[in-house]
């Protein structure tokens, strides 16, 4: 195959994944088919967390055969970095000819330390570091919190213009799901990734990303690999300059297979076909290019530079893992402070299970038609940071709706079945506080809570002076939050849903046999 074709194919396939990926995350109107979700399920971290051994095996075999194809075409964050790096060369052809990338030593200590840390903590059930570094869920959060609002803003502008002309084809969307914390943390990650990509290509993938490091361990031994033919090479260094992984040492002709993301840029640059992608099985990895750690003592200046670099990168990583953003509450809380457990989405089974499965990619957040799934801040602890929970401040969970379980890429939210239905899944129970209720306090009718209750778990019973007051039948309550959403009492609402740490089965409302006449003969007046 011609070298330029390889690169062309890589770009095409990458876009075939990347574009639907972005569109699916930005699709606020639910236009696109939910099956696009399958693209997300081939992502490495979701596959690991959901225990999809087949997907993991396929990805590892792919890497062992062809190198880090995953990083080149499947990983949306990788493609995003390529796009960002490409921006630098747009409209400046001379820049390409100038020295753009230089070979750099692998940050092996850092990358394998991070990978090891992630794996060890994962085995202990601590997901936070993985999820903060995972490329897929970071990309999801960036798209959800940064790109999607821009799309919605555009829609709202169009809607405003159309409405003025009397056209109601569009509709206004107010975003409720982007919180200050989720926005700032996504922005922070985006800036870190973007700056790294602009100046150092795929540095993120080769030092910080645990998926990249894991695949790098495999791609060292990959059967197809980039190799330099010393007889043909005229030492022009062009391949090194276009290598965004900075893994080609054109002086020695060594290519670091663990960092190569098979972008094939080098191939299309080389006019002598001295560098090629060919079947080169190797039991041992190529004699490693002088690693930063080995040469540290020999050159003091270099060691200083290396140390600083490692320090900076470690700093950036740590900062990314624990975004130090103040969790300032923007809106007044309408729920009781004693409610400290998050309400997890219906289908997530239990808080513990959800914590272990959810990658916090925010795909469910973007697809919830009611916008009640919101990313958490630190209120529920570090291990729930940025994971979605149900918030009933402006809407509630639709009785029939199961969208979140349909889009979840790794089974953190399990799709419902005929025997295990959404309508009988109790994610929490409504708790009524009579002292705060409108009916006794103002002696007026209200009943908004009962009105919105799909199961009549919240129903009205006689109170006094012809007034009626809510009462809760817990067995019927599914915790949808209809009552909490509509309760007019402030600052604290008179009815709140208290989370079930383990979801329970609710009774289906029974249908009563009717005694009243259901048909009539006369008007009655």
């Amino acid at each position: 195959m011609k070298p330029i074709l390889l690169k062309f194919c890589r770009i095409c396939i990458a876009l075939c994944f990347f574009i639907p990926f972005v569109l699916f995350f930005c699709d606020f109107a639910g236009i696109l088919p939910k099956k696009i979700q399958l693209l997300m399920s081939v992502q490495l971290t979701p596959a690991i967390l959901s225990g999809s051994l087949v997907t993991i095996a396929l990805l590892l075999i792919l890497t062992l055969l062809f190198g880090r194809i995953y990083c080149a075409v499947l990983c949306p964050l990788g493609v995003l970095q390529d796009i960002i790096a490409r921006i630098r060369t747009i409209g400046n052809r001379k820049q390409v000819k100038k020295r753009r990338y230089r070979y750099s030593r692998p940050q092996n200590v850092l990358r394998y330390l991070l990978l090891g840390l992630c794996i060890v903590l994962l085995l202990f059930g601590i997901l936070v570091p993985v999820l903060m570094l995972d490329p897929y869920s970071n990309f999801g959060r960036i798209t959800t919190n940064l790109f999607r609002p821009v799309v919605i803003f555009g829609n709202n502008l169009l809607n405003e213009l159309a409405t003025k002309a009397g056209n109601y084809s569009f509709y206004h969307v107010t975003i409720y799901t982007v919180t200050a914390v989720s926005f700032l943390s996504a922005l922070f990650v985006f800036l870190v990734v973007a700056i790294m990509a602009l100046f150092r290509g795929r540095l993120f993938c080769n030092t910080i990303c645990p998926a990249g490091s894991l695949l790098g361990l495999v791609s060292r031994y990959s059967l197809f690999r980039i190799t330099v033919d010393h007889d043909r090479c005229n030492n022009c260094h062009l391949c090194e300059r276009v290598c965004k992984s900075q893994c080609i040492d054109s002086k020695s002709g060594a290519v670091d297979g663990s960092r190569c993301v098979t972008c094939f840029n080098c191939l299309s640059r080389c006019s002598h076909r001295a560098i090629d992608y060919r079947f080169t099985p190797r039991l041992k990895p190529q004699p490693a290019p002088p690693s930063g750690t080995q040469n540290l003592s020999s050159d003091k200046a270099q060691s200083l530079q290396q140390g600083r670099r490692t320090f900076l990168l470690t700093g950036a990583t740590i900062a990314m893992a624990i975004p130090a953003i103040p969790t300032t509450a923007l809106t007044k809380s309408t729920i009781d402070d004693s409610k400290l457990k998050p309400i997890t989405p219906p289908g997530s089974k239990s808080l513990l299970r959800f914590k272990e499965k959810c990658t916090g990619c925010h795909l469910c957040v973007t697809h919830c038609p009611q916008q009640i799934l919101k990313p958490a801040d630190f209120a529920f602890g570090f291990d729930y940071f940025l994971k979605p929970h149900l918030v009933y401040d402006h809407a509630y969970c639709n009785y029939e709706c199961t969208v979140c379980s349909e889009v979840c890429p790794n089974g953190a939210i399990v799709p419902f079945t005929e025997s295990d239905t959404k309508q009988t899944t109790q994610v929490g129970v409504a708790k009524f506080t009579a002292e705060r209720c409108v009916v006794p306090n103002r002696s007026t009718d209200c009943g908004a809570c009962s009105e919105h209750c799909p199961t009549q778990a919240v129903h009205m019973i006689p109170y006094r002076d012809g007034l009626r007051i809510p009462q809760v039948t817990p067995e019927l309550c599914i915790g949808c939050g209809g009552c909490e959403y509509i309760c007019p009492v402030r600052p604290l609402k008179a009815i709140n849903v208290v989370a079930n740490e383990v979801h329970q089965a609710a009774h289906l409302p029974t249908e009563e046999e009717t005694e009243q006449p259901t048909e009539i003969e006369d008007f009655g007046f």
Partner: protein
Amino acid sequence: MKRRDFFRLGAAAAVTATLDFDQLQAALTSNKMVVEAIPDMVAVMGGEPAVMLDEALKTLGGISKFVKKGQTVVIKPNIGWDKKPDFAANTNPELVGALVKQCLAAGAKKVTIFDHTCDNWQKCYASSGIEKIAKESGASIVPANDEVYYKSVSLPQGVKLKSAKIHQALLEADVWFNVPVLKNHGGAKMSIAMKNYMGIVWDRGFFHDNDLQQCIADICTWNKKPALNIVDAYRCMRKHGPQGRSISDTSLLKSLIVSPDIVASDVASIKLFNQVEKMDVGEVGCVAHGERLKLGTQDIDKLSIKRIKI
């Protein structure tokens, strides 16, 4: 032009300007003969929704009495819930479709339908069957799910509710029809024509927090009154309203009550309802509040009512 002619013309113009044709028209329509011909209320029973609507409108002098050529019309059904038509949680779609066709036949420039739904608006519009029939019959069904669509209006006669944000489609309309479904209601006791007004406003929380029944009456004092209140009692929700739990909560009454008097419409509807489920008119507070605010009369025996059985 001679000076004399100029003065004459000026004088004639001045006289013409002082003539008030509105009053003349009002005098004509309140003419005793017209009152005798057209009843205050029409109640129809025993037909399909479209047939009953035709009968009622015919009795009231035809749709062209209410909708003039080139006017924009809003139809405000109850589409509050994500429920199929058989649950009677929303207005019957066939009734809405028939009304759209009538309006367009009368030469309406545009017919718009909306409701500020309780459940997700897109699901409500779809499940109720109203979105489909609106499109088929040539009306546009518009979103009402966001505060941007609402503009503030003042309600000088309101007791508790002094102003409210009302949907812009309704503010811009020349004429509108209030088309509720007859329902039992856990909070407001009954949901009929007056309660249906809650779907034209944005901030319903205020209603619940500040004497629901009074606020319902207050919002009905808004100076743009519906041309007609068309109460869909084809299938009514007998209990567990406003959502209902199953079809067994409904009764097939095959009736339609139409009147420009909103209080009388509600009272007549409650009397009809009482044949399948007991409900004291006195319990539905907004009706008495409405009468006090001069929105209509509770004493429907004094009205001329045309009863039609098909």
